């Protein structure tokens, strides 16, 4: 590979081997869990207790600490899914396919959370649970894309074929991601414009922004944890006839 240091290439080559991934993630898990707690506890405390009330919305705005990180994650995970799907298609790396499909249900959950929390906030603030504006509609389409990915994967028995089909669906659906992000700028929408992710200075007071960023990082770590847990199960299931899984089971039985 060009422009990538050898050490990085070697790391990815080793990680792509299922037994190595399985052993490595087992050691990684306690660290990730610790990091998650380190982020979510101050994030929630800061967001729900320390941060001041908003000048217009009062305390109702605090749903931002769930809604916005969940919405960011719904986009981020979809991109991860499309990229790993592409890697799986081009290089036929089994682990990339496993990461792709293990991300789908986590992403679908975050999308669902973003839609529900937005709706709960919308009723008192906008005066309606739901409107068909560009932002809300494109985010709903994202949920359907996730559900499509999960459904398609389940519908095909041969998991390598299923991964290829799913990767193509994920890659085509990726056009929806910039649409969601820019929908509030390209069209008139009821949903407000971006607060943090814009070129300008964020339009949120720093005392409210810090917990929000902590929550965003916590959600990201949570995704990695959830994805790895699912990926390990998927991997063992797929490789159930291979030698390393058999010896793994033998070890478990002895213990």
């Amino acid at each position, binding site marked *: 590979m060009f422009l990538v240091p050898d050490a990085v290439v070697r790391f990815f080559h080793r990680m792509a081997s299922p037994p190595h991934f399985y052993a490595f993630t087992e050691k990684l898990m306690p660290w990730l869990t610790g990091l998650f707690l380190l982020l979510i506890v101050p994030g929630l405390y800061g967001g729900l207790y320390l941060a001041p009330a908003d*000048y*217009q919305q009062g305390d109702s705005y605090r749903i931002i600490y769930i809604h916005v990180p969940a919405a960011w994650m719904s986009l981020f995970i979809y991109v991860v899914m499309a990229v790993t799907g592409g890697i799986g298609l081009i290089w036929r790396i089994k682990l990339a396919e496993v990461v792709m499909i293990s991300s789908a249900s986590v992403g679908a959950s975050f999308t669902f959370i973003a839609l529900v929390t937005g709706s709960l906030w919308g009723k008192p603030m906008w005066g309606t649970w739901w409107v068909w504006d560009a932002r809300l509609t494109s985010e709903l389409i994202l949920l359907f894309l996730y559900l499509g990915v999960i459904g398609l994967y389940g519908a095909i028995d041969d998991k390598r074929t299923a991964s290829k089909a799913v990767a193509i669906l994920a890659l085509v659906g990726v056009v929806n991601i910039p649409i969601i992000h820019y929908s509030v700028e390209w069209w008139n929408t*009821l949903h*407000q414009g971006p607060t943090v992710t814009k070129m300008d200075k964020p339009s*949120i007071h720093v005392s409210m922004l810090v917990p929000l960023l902590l929550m965003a990082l916590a959600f990201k770590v949570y995704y990695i944890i959830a994805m790895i847990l699912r990926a390990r199960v998927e991997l063992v299931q797929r490789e159930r006839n291979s030698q390393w899984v058999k010896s793994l089971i033998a070890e478990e039985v002895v213990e």
Partner: protein
Amino acid sequence: MKPARKQRLILITLMVIGAGIATAFALKSFNDNLMYFFPPTDVVDGKAPKDALFRLGGMVIKGSVERPGDGMMVRFKLTDFKKEVTVEYTGILPDLFREGQGIVAHGRLSPQGVFIAEEVLAKHDENYMPPEVAGSLKKPEAPSAGKAQ
């Protein structure tokens, strides 16, 4: 890179670009339908539908909110900082409705050019701050006109 992989890479890149271009054209042709509301300028210029329900969005002009009867009817003016439209609405207004706030009204235009709203939604802006900060911002000058929605 092996030729087979390179071919797959090119194929996938072309597929994503193709899907992107197709979507861009589709969105471009449906652009008007994707707009959630019309700004007051379009209404004054006669670009908004005459006999159909549509949505009108803009900022409530400061000092324009009045309650002519003793009922629930409220009348106010909406602006996009170019043109103004008078809106009449009977019902309960959302929490965030106030002067200087962006709103979206759903209704139809009367022959006199008054917008009769059946539903009023508040459009929140992207600014979040504690009350003290908002107070200190207002002191030096009235909050600037800001962006039209």
